[in-house]
C-alpha cells in the first residue's frame, strides 16, 4: 500500500492541466473509436485475435508498468539499492522468454481464451473453477487497491480529495473498456507506455545532472550506504546479511525461477495481451518484444530512486517526513518545470489507469467466459455473452471503486489479502508446467497440486515465518522462500496424485501437451514477412537473455 508524505504538493499550473485534459480526451476518444470494431465477444475480450506483435508487446510491458510498480520499484531502489535490478533481469526476463518460446504455442495454438480455460481443457472443471474464481476475485480486489493507491498519490501531489480521484479514474476506465473492449484497453496501454517514458526520461536526465551524474551517485551512495549498495550480488552469500534479506539461492530460485515464472507465465492480465495477437508468431513475439523495454526500464525507475536518496539522504527514515515511495514524486516536485511536469503527472495517472484497466479487462474475460458461460448460463448466442461482458466490466469497476473506499478505512486487511492472493500464482505455474510436459498428469493432480501448493505457501508465510519458527530476515526474503515451498509441495503432490489416479485419454489432450498439436493449427503460424531475422522468436528471446546477462556485468564486479 502506498503512503505519500505531506508537503509533496506539486506546483502545477494551467499548462500542466491542459496536458492532462488532452490525455483524458484521447483516452475516451480511443474507446469510442474502437467501438465500431466490436462485433463479437471475441472482439470484446481478445480483440478478435488480430493485433500486430509490436502493439501487443508494448501493451504487455505497459500492463506491468502500472504506477504502483513504478513508484514501488523506485522505492526498492532507495531501500535495497542495486539489488532491485534482480526484479527485472533475473526476475522477469527469463520468465518472459520462456512464456514466448515454450508456453505460447500451447496457449495461443490451443485457442483458449484465457489462462483458466487452459486448465479446463487440460485438467477439468474443478481446477478450472478454483482458479477462475480466485483470479476474478483477486483482480477486482487489486483493481480497487490500485485505485486507492492512486487516490492517495493524487491527494498528495495535486490536492484532489480521495473520492474525486477514485470516481474520476474509475469512471474513465469503466467507460473506455465497456465501450471499446480489450482493443481500447490495449491501445491505451501502448499510448501510456510512451507517455510514461516521456515523463521518466527527462526526470532522470535532470536528476543525474543535479547529483553529478552516475559518478556522483556512486561516490555519494558508496560513502553513505556502504560499498555493497550499488552491487547486485555482494553480500548475498548464504548466511551473510543484506538489506534484501535474501541470499543468492533464494534470489535465483525463489524470485528468478518460481515467483517470476508464476507471475509472468500464468497471470492472465499479462497473457491476455499475447492471446490477442494476430497469429502464433505474433503471440510468441509479444512477451519477447516486451522483454527489451523491461530490461532498460530500471534506468529510468531505479536510478531516480538512487538520485532521490542522494538528494534527500534521510528519505524513508522516521522523522524525515518522506516515505520510500516518495522518491519519484520528490524529483518531480524539485526538478521539473511546468510543461514537463504536466507530462509527468499525466504519465503517472495514465500508468495508474492502465494498471487498473489491465485488471478489469482480464477480469471481465474470465468472469464471462470461465464462470458465467461455463457454469451458469451455457450455450447462449454470442451477442448475449458480449452484452454480459459489458455489464460485468461495469460491475467489476464499481466493485473495484467500492473496494478502494473500503481500503481507505482498512488498509491492513488489503495488504493481507494481497499477500494471500500472491500465493496462488506459484502453484498455478507448477500445475501448468507439469501438465504441459507430462501427458500422464491427471485431472485430480491438477486440482490437488493447486490447492496444496497454495496452502503450503500460506503455512510457510503466515505460520512458520510470521510466528518466528524459521528465521528469515525480511518479508521479501520470506516471500521468496514461500514460493519455493509452494513449488516443491505442489509438484510433489501432483506427481503422487497422478500415480494413483486415472489420466485423461490422450486424444483429448491434442494441442494442450508437449508433443501434440492442435488440429487445424497451421504449422508455422506465421504470415508472409515473418521470416525476416528481427521477427524470429528464438533470436529475440535469446537476444533478451544475453542482453539481461550483460546488464549484470557492471553491477557484479
Amino acid at each position, binding site marked *: 500500500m502506498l503512503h505519500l508524505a505531506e508537503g509533496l504538493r506539486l506546483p502545477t499550473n494551467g499548462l500542466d492541466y491542459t496536458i492532462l485534459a488532452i490525455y483524458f480526451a484521447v483516452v475516451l476518444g480511443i474507446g469510442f473509436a474502437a467501438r465500431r470494431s*466490436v462485433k463479437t465477444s*471475441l*472482439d470484446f475480450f481478445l480483440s478478435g485475435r488480430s493485433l500486430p506483435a509490436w502493439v501487443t508487446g508494448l501493451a504487455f510491458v505497459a500492463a506491468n508498468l502500472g504506477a504502483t510498480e513504478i513508484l514501488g520499484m523506485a522505492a526498492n531502489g532507495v531501500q535495497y539499492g542495486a539489488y532491485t535490478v534482480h526484479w527485472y533481469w533475473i526476475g522477469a526476463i527469463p520468465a518472459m522468454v520462456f512464456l514466448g518460446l515454450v508456453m505460447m504455442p500451447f496457449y495461443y495454438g490451443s485457442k483458449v481464451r484465457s489462462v483458466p480455460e487452459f486448465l479446463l481443457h487440460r485438467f477439468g472443471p474443478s481446477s478450472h473453477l478454483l482458479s477462475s474464481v480466485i483470479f476474478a476475485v483477486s483482480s477486482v480486489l487489486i483493481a480497487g487497491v490500485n485505485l486507492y493507491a492512486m487516490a492517495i498519490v493524487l491527494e498528495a501531489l495535486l490536492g484532489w480529495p480521495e473520492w474525486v480521484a477514485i470516481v474520476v479514474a474509475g469512471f474513465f476506465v469503466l467507460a473506455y473498456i465497456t465501450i471499446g473492449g480489450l482493443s481500447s484497453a490495449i491501445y491505451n496501454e501502448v499510448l501510456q507506455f*510512451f507517455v510514461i517514458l*516521456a515523463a521518466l526520461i527527462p526526470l532522470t536526465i535532470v536528476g543525474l545532472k543535479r547529483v553529478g551524474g552516475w559518478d556522483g551517485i556512486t561516490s555519494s551512495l558508496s560513502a553513505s550506504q556502504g560499498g555493497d549498495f550499488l552491487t547486485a550480488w555482494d553480500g548475498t552469500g548464504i548466511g551473510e546479511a543484506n538489506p534484501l534479506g535474501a541470499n543468492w539461492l533464494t534470489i535465483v530460485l525463489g524470485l528468478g525461477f518460481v515467483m517470476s515464472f508464476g507471475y509472468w507465465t500464468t497471470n492472465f492480465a499479462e497473457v491476455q495481451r499475447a492471446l490477442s495477437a494476430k497469429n502464433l508468431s505474433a503471440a510468441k513475439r509479444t512477451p519477447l518484444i516486451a522483454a527489451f523495454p523491461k530490461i532498460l526500464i530500471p534506468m529510468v525507475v531505479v536510478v531516480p530512486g538512487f538520485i532521490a536518496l542522494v538528494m534527500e539522504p534521510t528519505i524513508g527514515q522516521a522523522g524525515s517526513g518522506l516515505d520510500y515511495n516518495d522518491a519519484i514524486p520528490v524529483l518531480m516536485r524539485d526538478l521539473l518545470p511546468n510543461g*514537463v511536469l504536466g507530462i509527468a503527472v499525466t504519465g503517472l495517472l495514465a500508468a495508474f489507469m492502465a494498471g487498473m484497466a489491465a485488471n478489469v479487462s482480464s477480469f471481465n474475460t474470465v468472469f464471462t467466459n470461465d464462470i458465467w458461460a461455463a457454469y451458469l448460463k451455457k450455450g447462449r448466442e454470442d451477442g448475449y455473452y458480449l452484452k454480459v461482458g459489458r455489464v460485468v466490466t461495469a460491475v467489476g469497476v464499481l466493485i473495484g471503486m467500492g473496494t478502494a473506499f473500503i481500503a481507505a478505512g482498512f488498509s491492513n486487511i488489503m495488504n493481507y489479502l494481497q499477500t494471500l492472493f500472491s500465493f496462488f500464482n506459484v502453484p498455478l505455474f507448477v500445475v501448468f508446467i507439469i501438465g504441459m510436459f507430462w501427458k500422464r498428469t491427471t485431472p485430480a493432480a491438477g486440482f490437488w497440486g493447486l490447492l496444496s501448493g497454495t496452502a503450503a505457501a500460506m503455512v510457510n508465510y503466515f505460520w512458520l515465518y510470521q510466528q518466528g519458527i524459521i528465521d528469515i530476515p525480511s518479508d521479501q526474503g520470506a516471500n521468496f522462500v514461500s514460493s519455493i515451498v509452494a513449488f516443491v509441495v505442489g509438484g510433489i503432490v501432483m506427481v503422487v496424485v497422478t500415480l494413483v489416479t486415472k489420466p485423461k485419454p490422450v486424444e483429448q489432450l491434442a494441442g494442450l501437451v508437449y508433443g501434440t498439436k492442435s*488440429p487445424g493449427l497451421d504449422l508455422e503460424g506465421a504470415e*508472409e*514477412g515473418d521470416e525476416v531475422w528481427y521477427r524470429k522468436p528464438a533470436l529475440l528471446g535469446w537476444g533478451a537473455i544475453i542482453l539481461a546477462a550483460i546488464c549484470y556485468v557492471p553491477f557484479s564486479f
Partner: protein
Amino acid sequence: MTEKQNPPAEGHAFQDEVTELEAKSATAARLFDIRRIIGALFVVYGLIVGAAGIFATDADLEKAQDININLWTGLGMLALGLFFLVWVKLRPTVPPTPPLPQEALDAAEGEGGPAGRG
C-alpha cells in the same frame, strides 16, 4: 505425424467456436490504426511542451539544473510523433482481406508475396 487423423470432435468444440468467431470478428477490418493517435498526440504535446521551453523563465531553467528540459522534451516528443506519422504514411495498414472460408485462407497462406523479404 499422427495428429492429422480425425481428432475427437467432443474435446475441441471450443476451438471450432473460436475459429468461427475469428471469421466473424470485425477487429482486423474496422479497428483504427493506433499509430495515428500516438503520432498526433505526441506532435501536439511536443508543440505545447516545446513552446513552454522557448518561453522558459529563469526560474524554470534554474529548477531543471540549467537544462532547458521543456525544449528538449518537446523536441523529443515531436520527433517521436512525426516518426509514427511517417511510419503510417510509408507502411499503411494492409486493407483486410474480406472474410473467406477457412480453407481458402489456409490455401492463400502458403503463397507468400512481394513483401515477404525484408
